[in-house]
């Protein structure tokens, strides 16, 4: 019971924060709301016994990545003039309406459809040991593939930021 209450509180806060991310005019506010959203999702993970996921969500996303985003925003130092006026265009209204319709439709259909009985979790579920075990056995290949992906990203970052030869010399 108490878990359900917490779940709804965090879920509602995640949704409200996510709406704030896309509706805030000032990108700093958006970034702050995104931190709130990520923390709420982390809390939901914790409620679902995925403690490691919750921890990583806070450390990596709400921590490291958001700091980077804030750095970039501060370096850009956008003035209110550059941000522009809030405009309501036909396109935006249509987009919001379509997304709202799809989400509502899915929610209505899903709540009718999906109440699978909760099955008992393995007592080790979500522990670091268990996650590590799965990562190095069942999902060994994706784990290694991600390293290739990161290598490509690193090379890409170097290529795109390096100055033309001769510029700096």
């Amino acid at each position, binding site marked *: 019971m108490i878990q359900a209450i917490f779940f709804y509180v965090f879920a509602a806060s995640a949704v409200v924060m996510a709406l704030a991310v896309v509706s805030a005019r000032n990108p700093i506010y958006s970034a702050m709301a995104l931190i709130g959203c990520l923390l709420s999702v982390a809390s939901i993970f914790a409620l679902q016994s995925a403690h490691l996921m919750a921890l990583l969500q806070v450390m990596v996303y709400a921590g490291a990545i958001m700091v980077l985003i804030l750095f970039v925003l501060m370096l850009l130092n956008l003035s209110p003039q550059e941000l522009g006026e809030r405009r309501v265009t036909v396109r935006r209204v249509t987009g919001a309406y379509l997304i709202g319709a799809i989400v509502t*439709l*899915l929610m209505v*259909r*899903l709540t009718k*459809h*999906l109440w699978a009985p909760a099955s008992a979790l393995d007592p080790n579920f979500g522990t670091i040991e268990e996650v590590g*075990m799965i990562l*190095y*056995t*069942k*999902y*060994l*290949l*994706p784990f290694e*593939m*991600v390293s*290739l*992906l990161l*290598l*490509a*990203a690193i*090379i*890409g970052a*170097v*290529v*795109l930021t*390096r100055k*033309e*030869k001769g510029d700096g010399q």
Partner: protein
Amino acid sequence: MGIDNLPVALSVIRPELILAGTALVCIALDLLYKPADKMPCWAIAFFGCLAALAATIAAWGTEQEAFSQLVRMDNLSNFFAVVFLMAGMITLCLSASYVQREGLMAGEYYTLLLISMTGMLFMAQANDLMTVYLGIEIMSIPVYVLVAMMQKSPKSPEAGLKYLLLGGFASAILLFGIAFLYGAVGTTQLADILRHAPRAMRASDPLFLAGVGFLLVGMGFKVSLVPFHMWTPDAYEGAPTSVTAFMSVAVKAAGFSILIRVIVLTLHPMAATWSQIFWWLAVVTMVLGNVVALVQENIKRMLAYSSIAHAGYVLVALTTGSQLGVQAALIYLFIYSLMNLGAFGVIIAMSREGDQGVHIEDFTGIAREHPMYALAMAVFMFSLAGVPPTAGFIGKFYAFSAAIKAGYIGLAVIGVLMSAVSAYFYLRVLVVMYMKEPEAGPEYGAGPWGATVGAGVSVSLWVCALSILVLGIWPGWLNHFAHQALQGLGCLL
């Protein structure tokens, strides 16, 4: 499953390992060894592809799953691997002198190309949505960078950013679809999804259907089907021409490899639903691609719209959901790769530093100065238009006859009509090349046309043009291999 009995079967991912290893050697060599021409990097990349191709061909006929069924090597994956590696090798040949002329960072360029191909091979072998997603990302991220690499031209970084942002959205939508499917059936394994699909269809499970829809959107982006094609013209125009050639062929074929694997084969129980969607997507893709290509002045942009249209023809074959249709799609992709790479090869040969001379008007009268290039371009344009006896005709013939056999006569008629429309803009290039006098200006005189390209371009043009003619006259063996590619999967169709 313990750590002691890991389901590791490296032989299944041997081509990927070879390519990834080559990429590492290539980037290391680039640091250590610094001659201006970077030929060692090129040679290593080329021979890495060759070795991976040999490993793939040697594995023809094997059928094996590995790594907890995350990857599956079968003839279908091997067929696609051959297409990717062939496209990659031709792209490397086209790149060698182009990279030098445009002053791109050669070592990084080849490395990113190799990593991107590794991702494609993983996509072809994907047996789990996890592998599908990671394969797509490993393929896409290097391509985003390659598109933005030509820093001298303002268009290139813009194209790269556009492609990155839209590609990021498409990946997110695809991932959303994967999450929905996982929520609906509790697994990401394709074989398990196939087992659950009939039940989910009967119950018309909204989570499952929404998941499939999102997957379709994500894949539609990668193969540039029409409502999701917005990035294509800008990215193709802004990218270095050799990268455009690679994107229009290999990236598209890789997108189709997962479209075939995930939608056509795995979700075959719901073929009635997706074939309707495919029907409409194929029609709008063919119509818009061909009609907008009519008014393009930049030849790279024209070929971008033409590549959208060709994705539509492949989709015509896939709409049938029959074995014949998938076979036709495989044949089409193989042939399309050769002719499109060839066409971009001629553009590379005829353009000048800074990617100038890529307007259709710039091809005026090149038949007189460069008869061989003009002849090759004529073969590619006839083939793209689908004129016999070129291979392009064979590809369209198989695709449309599969559609007619499956009862999609209206679709085939629209396809044929649209190919007739496409003849206008392909043949216009021929008219400009052969029937117009070159203007006697300093710009189009005896300038350095084609002087900056090396042997790689001419060799690959020869290879492409000859294979198109040979395939156009003897298409039987390609049909045979495409048939074999689907044999292990016959039960699904």
